[in-house]
């Protein structure tokens, strides 16, 4: 498979993100918040995809890495003079250390990766439901500690005074970086080995692949992306620990499954589609015009429409909107169809 033929697989998701950002720049500043939020969601869901999509193991722990990333980037960028006002119990070395925007994002990714690696070291031996519940336990513990530990952050308060550096460009570039890393990973031999264990664990193990090691690697890469996305998030709005908990876990998992958890395109499409619908109905609380027709809904409709829509998509397209396939040019798909037809007739 030539590189040129493969290129759309990563270019199309990236272009979708770019188009979202450009559209976001064109609308009024009031609506821009929805586009920014969508781009952050893309970054988070792509991180989620790196582990769940490639390994086929369900993990609920991803949002804890987002939270840890947000805490890292947040606590390191609050202006020095405000640190002790906002976070009186903060540890000394965190009070004295303040870094810039880019450095804080890089550190958020690093801390996310280290945390994911440390957690994955014991947990990646598990699979199935045990893995699901164990990663859920990680999410609960992380949320519990971030909520009450005053030495590492604002505890139950939200992260006020973090410089709001995540604008449309930073969010878009951030999401595209995540897409690039995710694609690069799935094209390496490690990504391929992990996908092999997803399809048939016994055969993959028989071929000499260490399922544990490959899962741990993907978990760490996913942790880095999640931490990075958390950094972008905290630079966008004052988040609190409970914003990075169950609701976000459910919604991002739903995005991945609705889009199609088997492909990078699925992750991006799922995030864009689900958040698009959600934003539309949230905005419709203040009346939106659709082709000259005034639409007005009650607050809370967005969540209900989203829940119902998710159920419907899962019933009628259980493998997601993209069916778990990467983007491919129509020419190639026809060839595959011909091939199958030829095979069927012989």
């Amino acid at each position, binding site marked *: 498979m030539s590189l040129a033929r493969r290129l759309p697989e990563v270019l199309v998701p990236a272009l979708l993100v770019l188009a979202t950002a450009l559209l976001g720049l064109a609308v009024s500043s009031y609506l821009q918040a929805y586009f920014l939020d969508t781009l952050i969601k893309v970054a988070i869901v792509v991180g989620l995809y790196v582990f769940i999509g490639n390994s086929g193991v369900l993990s609920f722990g991803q949002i804890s890495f987002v939270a840890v990333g947000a805490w890292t980037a947040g606590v390191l960028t609050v202006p020095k003079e405000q640190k002790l006002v906002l976070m009186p119990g903060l540890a000394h070395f965190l009070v004295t250390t303040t870094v810039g925007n880019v450095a804080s994002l890089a550190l958020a990714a690093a801390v996310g990766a280290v945390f994911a690696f440390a957690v994955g070291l014991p947990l990646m*031996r598990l699979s199935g439901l045990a893995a699901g*519940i*164990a990663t859920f*336990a990680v999410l609960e*513990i992380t949320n519990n500690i971030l*909520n009450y530990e005053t030495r590492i952050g604002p505890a139950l308060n939200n992260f006020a005074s973090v410089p709001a550096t995540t604008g449309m460009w930073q969010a878009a570039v951030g999401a595209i970086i995540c897409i690039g890393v995710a694609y690069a990973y799935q094209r390496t031999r490690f990504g391929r080995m992990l996908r092999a264990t997803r399809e048939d664990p016994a055969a993959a193990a028989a071929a000499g692949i260490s399922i544990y090691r490959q899962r741990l690697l993907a978990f760490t890469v996913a942790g880095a992306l999640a931490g990075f996305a958390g950094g972008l998030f905290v630079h966008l709005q004052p988040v609190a620990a409970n914003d990075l908990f169950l609701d976000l876990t459910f919604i991002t998992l739903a995005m991945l499954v609705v889009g199609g958890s088997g492909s990078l395109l699925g992750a991006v499409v799922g995030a864009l589609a689900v958040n698009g619908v959600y934003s539309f109905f949230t905005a419709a609380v203040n009346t939106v015009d659709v082709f000259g027709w005034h639409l007005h809904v009650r607050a809370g409709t967005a*969540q209900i429409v989203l*829940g119902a829509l998710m159920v419907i998509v899962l019933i009628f397209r259980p493998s997601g909107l993209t069916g778990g396939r990467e983007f491919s040019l129509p020419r190639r798909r026809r060839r595959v169809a011909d091939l199958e037809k030829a095979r069927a007739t012989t």
Partner: protein
Amino acid sequence: MILAFLNLTWPTFATALALGGVYALMAVGIGLVFGVLRLVNFAYGQLIMAGAFALVYGARHHLPNWESILLCFGVVLVLSVLMDRVVFRPLRTSSPAVMLVATFAVAFLLQNIALLKYGPLPRPIGSLTDLNAPWDIFGVQIKKIAVISVATAAGCLAILQLLLSKTSLGLHMRAASADFRTARLLGVRANRVIGTAVIISGLLAATSAVMLSVQAQDITYTFGLQDTIIVLAGVVVGGMNRPIPATLGGFSIGFATGILGGVLPSNQTQYLSSFIFAAVIVVLLVRPNGLFTRAGGTVERV
């Protein structure tokens, strides 16, 4: 002596026992459906939430207690059957991950309907509140609801055990949860078994809803969510594939939560869930097939 040393009192012990009992019922409700459908029903907590709001509704309209309870059972049962028919039945052949996410979606949907209808503020339960008054048992003050919860849980579990072991329907259900396809080949009717499991699971949800809402007294739209997560952890820790280990797992985690809540010094109670979930991780690492199942377990072979 030992109780005093551990800072443990009889009321704490009774509360823990009551919580363990209710969690055991929820564990059976979740475990039964998992047994026949291989479906982890995350929306179980929202059934309980709906039942609790039925009680709130009953109290606001001055219904007598038994009518409120009847309403609670009705609402939960209808919702439970509806959930199975509309969502789980079409998804019966999908992968476990898709089914789990579908139950998330249902949970999310029901929770937000409740939020839209009742708003974010807690509602007092209103009915049955006198059950929180203590009874004097051998000089120890123990809440009535704790005693009732333990008794109800024990009664329900005994009836269920009889149903599963002595009736042919129970035999069918056990066969179906051991190996659904083979059971069908031998003449077990799939829809009947699944329907029964869903109804029993709904009844247990309604019973738990009454117990939990009297214990909690205030109901919000997230009621039952955290309990369901803890019970799910307990069920997996106990051993998901068999009803008795699953029940024991649910009971243990409820009991442990109750005891720890009473024993921990007050500056550490906020970290209660961390302690519980850390224990969950440790047990899963040591015994991934379940704490109360026979050692070894089954390894899937090609």
